[in-house]
């Protein structure tokens, strides 16, 4: 690892990186982020490696991060010199030899790529590099380009710019994409105040959920009294279903590190911490390797890029408490104390970690910084909505066809995210609601589907941006059950320090449990609202302060479902087990026997080709028959 001290050193590293990114040999990339590995990418990688070795091929096999389309994992990209880059989805070990065969033959007969890339965007440099000259080869006719895939058409990637394109372990490849040039620019040509002005001009707001203006926060921390200051990266992503920060830490760790060095220089900090949850082993590993590499290159440590500025980063692993994503609890945990929040009347930018001025930003926020410095605050402010600039990464999960990570300009209508990027709801079912902002966010109903997604609009709709989780629900989702699920999560994650959150949230859970069990009482909804208001007003931190949101937003938009449960003892979505009965419609039942076989408690009887019957006294209401019947003969009442 050679030292990087000058602009020339950076250029040299960039050249090496570009030769690795777009080499003169065939290169196969396997998406090895957690989403890929969970789908079997490691096996695919090993199979390809073994096959390449066996055939003595001069093919480069490289790991990379996630391109976001997790429903197509394991993803394998093939880049041949002078040809478009081809993406193969749902790769298997079995398909590995066939893939190498068809590369040798120059065909796509055996396995069809699902898109091609003619060029690669280098957003930090403000340019795109074409993989080949002239037109795409004729045999690729009919393969759509990446921008023709609805999942990608409306995406603009800034924070996740390098994920799935570079080898996260290669600092050269990161530099080739324009990485560390912003740091050079900041350290050698800009005053700290000018950097802060640029970030203020960008309008960047905290991506962790608070939406506080990043530049203003930096300024306050810079101006705070004290010689020793800290910058901290919050990688304690804890919302169920949210994993955008994980993807960035795994797929592009240097973007976070570069952002933090720039921030530290602007603020006047010489020590930084990345607080990342231990349930993210790959993120911890990749960040650790990237920090080590940056140190060896001299990009962390003493006298960075010959500027005289010293800065280093340490990783601190969280033990998995949701509340540790809250800034003061995170700092308490960093200090070695229990992860409990404190009141923030005195801001952490003045008295934070070890009572010293501390600037905490989320992973995605830090990753945006190098791009902002490179392209200018004005450029960033030109993307997205007026008061929410830039892009936001969302994790699209739940009842949606295209599960994955998407990065869109702020203000993109919810409809585009759900129907175009997300590809709509599976099984042709109706979209019902989307939970944004994690467990402390809210449910946005179908009638607000045209809502532009930005900090302020989500807030107005009774939800919040949060870290960017989007859980899509279809018509078969019971909103009372959903409210109960989130409240149960928050109850178990409450740190227990203050009374309203510790005791209040569990009482709300008890009432919701009763409602779902058909034991709801008249006045329960009003009581839930009353408790909610007092919890919001009375809680010590934002976890308690926003805990009632899922209940309040579902009451606001789905009050009739609560009433049906309480008054009619009926679950309209047929989810709450205590309130439903399964029966077989004699007119539709063909006597095929599928339900009989699926029933785990053998409570369905009937001869072949004759009407089947459910014994309700034995039925455990698991819904296996309902899911398995092809004739819609099982009804739920």
């Amino acid at each position: 690892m050679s030292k990087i001290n000058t602009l020339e050193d950076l250029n040299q590293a960039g050249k090496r990186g570009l030769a690795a990114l777009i080499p003169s040999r065939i290169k196969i990339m396997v998406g090895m982020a957690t989403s890929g590995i969970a789908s079997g990418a490691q096996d695919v990688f090993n199979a390809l490696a073994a096959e390449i070795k066996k055939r003595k091929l001069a093919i480069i096999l490289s790991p990379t991060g996630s391109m976001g389309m997790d429903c197509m994992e394991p993803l394998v990209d093939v880049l041949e010199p002078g040809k478009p880059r081809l993406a193969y989805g749902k790769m298997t070990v079995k398909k590995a030899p066939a893939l190498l065969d068809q590369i040798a033959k120059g065909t796509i007969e055996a396995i069809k790529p699902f898109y091609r890339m003619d060029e690669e965007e280098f957003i930090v440099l403000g340019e795109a590099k074409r993989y080949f000259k002239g037109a795409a080869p004729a045999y690729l006719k009919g393969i759509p380009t990446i921008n023709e895939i609805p999942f990608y058409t409306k995406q603009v990637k800034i924070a996740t710019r390098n994920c799935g394109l570079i080898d996260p372990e290669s600092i050269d490849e990161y530099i080739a994409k324009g990485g560390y040039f912003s740091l050079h620019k900041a350290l050698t040509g800009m005053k700290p105040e000018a950097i802060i002005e640029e970030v203020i001009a960008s309008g960047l707001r905290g991506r962790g959920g608070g939406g506080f203006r990043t530049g203003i926060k930096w300024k306050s921390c810079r101006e705070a009294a004290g010689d020793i200051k800290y910058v901290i990266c919050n990688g304690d992503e804890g919302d169920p279903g949210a994993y955008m920060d994980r993807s960035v830490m795994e797929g592009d760790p240097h973007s976070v590190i570069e952002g933090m060095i720039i921030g530290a220089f602007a603020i006047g900090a010489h020590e930084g911490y990345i607080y990342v949850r231990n349930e993210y082993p790959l993120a911890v590993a990749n960040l650790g390797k990237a920090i080590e590499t940056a140190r060896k290159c001299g990009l962390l440590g003493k006298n960075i890029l010959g500027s005289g500025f010293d800065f280093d980063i340490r990783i601190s692993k969280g033990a998995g408490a949701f509340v540790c994503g809250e800034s003061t609890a995170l700092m308490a945990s960093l200090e070695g104390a229990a992860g409990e929040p404190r009141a923030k009347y005195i801001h952490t930018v003045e008295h934070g970690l070890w009572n010293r001025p501390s600037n905490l930003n989320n992973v995605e926020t830090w990753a945006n910084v190098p791009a902002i410095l490179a392209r200018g605050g004005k450029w960033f402010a030109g993307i997205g909505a007026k008061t929410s600039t830039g892009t936001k990464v969302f994790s699209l999960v739940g009842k949606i066809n295209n599960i994955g990570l998407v990065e869109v300009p702020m203000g993109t209508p919810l409809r585009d995210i759900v129907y175009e990027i997300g590809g709509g709801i599976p099984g042709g079912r109706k979209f019902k609601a989307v939970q944004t902002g994690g467990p402390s966010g809210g449910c946005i109903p179908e009638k607000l589907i045209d809502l532009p997604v930005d900090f302020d609009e989500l807030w107005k709709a009774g939800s919040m941006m949060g870290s960017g989780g989007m859980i899509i629900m279809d018509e078969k989702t019971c909103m009372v059950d959903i409210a109960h699920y989130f409240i149960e999560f928050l109850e178990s994650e409450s740190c227990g320090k203050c009374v309203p959150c510790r005791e209040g949230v569990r009482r709300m859970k008890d009432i919701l449990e009763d409602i779902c069990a058909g034991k709801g009482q008249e006045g329960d909804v009003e009581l839930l609202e009353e408790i909610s208001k007092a919890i919001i007003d009375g809680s010590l931190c934002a976890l308690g302060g926003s805990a009632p949101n899922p209940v309040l937003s579902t009451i606001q938009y789905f009050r009739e479902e609560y009433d049906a449960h309480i008054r009619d003892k009926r679950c309209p979505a047929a989810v709450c087990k205590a309130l439903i009965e399964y029966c077989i419609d004699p007119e539709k039942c063909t006597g095929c026997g599928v339900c009989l076989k699926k029933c785990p408690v053998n409570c369905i009887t009937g001869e072949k080709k004759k009407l089947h019957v459910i014994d309700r006294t034995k039925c455990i209401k698991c819904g296996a028959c309902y899911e398995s019947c092809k004739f819609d003969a099982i009804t739920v009442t």
Partner: protein
Amino acid sequence: MAKFIIDGKNIEAEEGATILDAARENGIGIPTLCTHDEVGTAGACRLCVVEVKKGNRSRIVTSCLYNVEDGIVVDTHSERVMAVRRLVLQLLLARCPASDLIRDLAEEMGVKPEPRFTVDTDKGKCILCRLCVRTCEQVVGVSAIGFSFRGADKTVGTPFHEQSKACIGCGACAYICPTDHIEMTAVHDKRIIWDREFKMASCSVCGRYFAPEDQLEFISKKTGVPMTDLMVCTSCR
């Protein structure tokens, strides 16, 4: 000095004072369960919340933590404030039905138990005010007790709920506990607290068992006063 208003009364207090300090100095009562002059603040009970208006903005703050500011208008009994206090007391009534302190406070404030809250049977009288833990750490200086678990399962105790070698049996935790949750029993020359038996030292003058030997040794070590000088009880000194 900061000039501001609490419940319509013009008040002056030093910068750095909390609203709770300033209110009490001026004879305005704000209920609390987790504050004590001898230990640092926690902001855990939320009973001391007040409504603060600053310009057009009004919000609920914790008076034991919020420092006074010029021009603020504080309402210690607004509707929003009372709604929080009512909920806190109802929640504590359901958690610790046997606590006289909570029952009396609720009665005083006209708060009735919420029938939809199922009464707990496993929490004893502990309201998790943290006074014991803070006293053990900040006043006694041994940190023998702390918290385990989180949420409603949070409990106060020695590490792993095993007999603690750090505990000196001083009983400060039991003395400060506002609800008498912490049990301390004395039989002849023995004191039992946190499941550990402490041998009591007898006063060299009157012979009364007056303090655990462990506590006297701790004091001796900390102050340099020889043990023999510490063997006299406060009454005989």
